[in-house]
């Protein structure tokens, strides 16, 4: 399972970079979305995947019995998803506004501030 996830994450990172290198700003944002998803999955996969062992403490005990899944990566991913959601909402509005103002979605036409 871990191996499969590792390959999936690698493919996702590759797709994200490929999309970000395209000239269209819409594809750029799609690339950013995939990139943040890949990062989230990476956190999830790298901290160990435990099946069917929720981190619950039985009643009357101080510690869980046996090995349980680590709940922290899930908390981290949850936080990261919320942040990525906010940031991506902003990027979508940004490319919309940029398209309205610059009247093109081609990044090669947006060079006014580079020289």
């Amino acid at each position, binding site marked *: 399972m871990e191996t499969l996830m590792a390959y999936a994450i690698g493919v996702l990172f590759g797709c994200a970079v490929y999309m970000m290198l395209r000239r269209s700003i819409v594809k750029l944002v799609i690339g950013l979305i995939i990139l943040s998803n890949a990062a989230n999955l990476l956190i999830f996969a790298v901290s160990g995947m435990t099946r069917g062992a929720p981190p619950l403490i039985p009643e009357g005990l101080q510690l869980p019995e046996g090995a349980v899944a680590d709940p922290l990566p899930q908390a981290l991913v949850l*936080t990261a998803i919320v942040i990525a959601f906010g940031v991506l909402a902003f990027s979508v509005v940004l490319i919309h506004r940029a398209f309205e103002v610059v009247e093109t979605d081609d990044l090669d036409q947006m060079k006014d501030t580079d020289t």
Partner: protein
Amino acid sequence: MSTEVALPVFIPLLAGVLSLMLWRSRKWQRRLAVLATGLLLASTLWLLRSTLDQGYVVMQLGGWAAPFGITLVADLLSAVMAVITGLIGFAVALYSLGTIPDRHEKFGYYPLMHLLLAGVAGSFLTGDIFNLFVWFEVMLLASFALLTLGGERAQMEGAIKYVTLNLFSSALFLSAIGLTYGLTGTLNMADLAYKLSQVEHTGMVNVVALMFMISFGIKAAAFPLFFWLPASYHTPQVAVSALFAGLLTKVGVYALYRLFTLVFVGDTGYTHTILLWSAALTMLTGVLGAAAQFEFRRILSFHIVSQIGYIMLGLALFTPLALLGGVFYLVHNIIAKTNLFLISGLTYRLLGSYDLKKLGGVYRERPGIAILFLISALGLAGIPPLSGFFAKFLLIRAAVEIEAWMAVVVALTVSFMTLYSMIKIWAQVFWKPVPDAVDATRLRSRERDPGMFWLLTPIIGLAALVVLFGVWAEPLYQVARDAAEQLLNPAGYIEAVLGVTP
């Protein structure tokens, strides 16, 4: 309880919320901006005082002992950076009163400014690496909105580059955090340092270190990933530019300082050599880029890049004197650079342009402003007795001591070329006569401009600090020396946070 370490984060957050509640009353938002940034400055000074007394100020949020909860921790470097945040926040808040157009104020300029300051202060004071990521994002979101406020074409184009590269670096940062957690099972920086010092260093640690380095390098605008900075920093309102120039890139540099003195010190021969090359190339490309520019704020933007190189040099050389110089340089650079941006806004107000070819005659009409510029510009270039001289002197001396001749040559060359850029601005904006096509009635008018008070007060204050840290450098030198000592002895930091002696 050490309340003072939480206040610099809490005050701007609260002010941001209050500011949002006062959405309809711009008058109260303006008052709140000055009050809150003033309080922020006061609280950071309190924090610095306690840090000087106790060495480390630690607060475990919610009473969860480290490494399980989130720790707020201030050592001297954090405290100094927090004070500078308060200072620049206060100066820019005053400046905003006189320069920010009504339309921007209506669309939430002040709430965004407070949230940006909260993000910056949070990044400086947190002791948890995931929490650092969260504060980075708070800061970035506020900066995205501030950068695009106004919605002009140049702003949109600049913002796309700024947003893309910063989000890319955030994703890289997040991946590096994930891998670190997989390796060590902890996110607390002190605990990370402790655990990594116990295990043998493997290639994986270096990979993670490099991921952090690239991610913070993008945020700090270090070579080769600095392109987003000169493409975007000259586009927003000048108060926003000044705030970004002073604080945002320095957060990236601070994160580099924190991680590469505390956590990733096992293989300095590898990591710090890469930092050294990156620092040298950052200095050179920044200053060469500036030489080609003819727009006031673009020249200054490229100089931000080149100054980042100097600060990174302090970290890369990794001797007590070099770190001392780096900390000194950080303080000096934030003050001088912010002030130069503020002055570019002043000449814009008088002559209506940032293009050097359309500016001129300021020395003849307003010699006072010209002298304020000269103080900051010569300070930036490192002319004695201004603050930049001691900053550069310490760094170059540190490089000479360990015989890093390449760094010495680059630092000196770049210093001369900085002077060249500053003289170019001086000759074009202040010395030459007003070009014929330019309307200079505002420059020549003898009427009192009531808004001018808000522009001049912060500029005079910051210029005074540039002089003060030059002629009376001893207190800052001592604080920087103690900060460098703490950075080189991470055991103190680990003990303060975890309560164990490694």
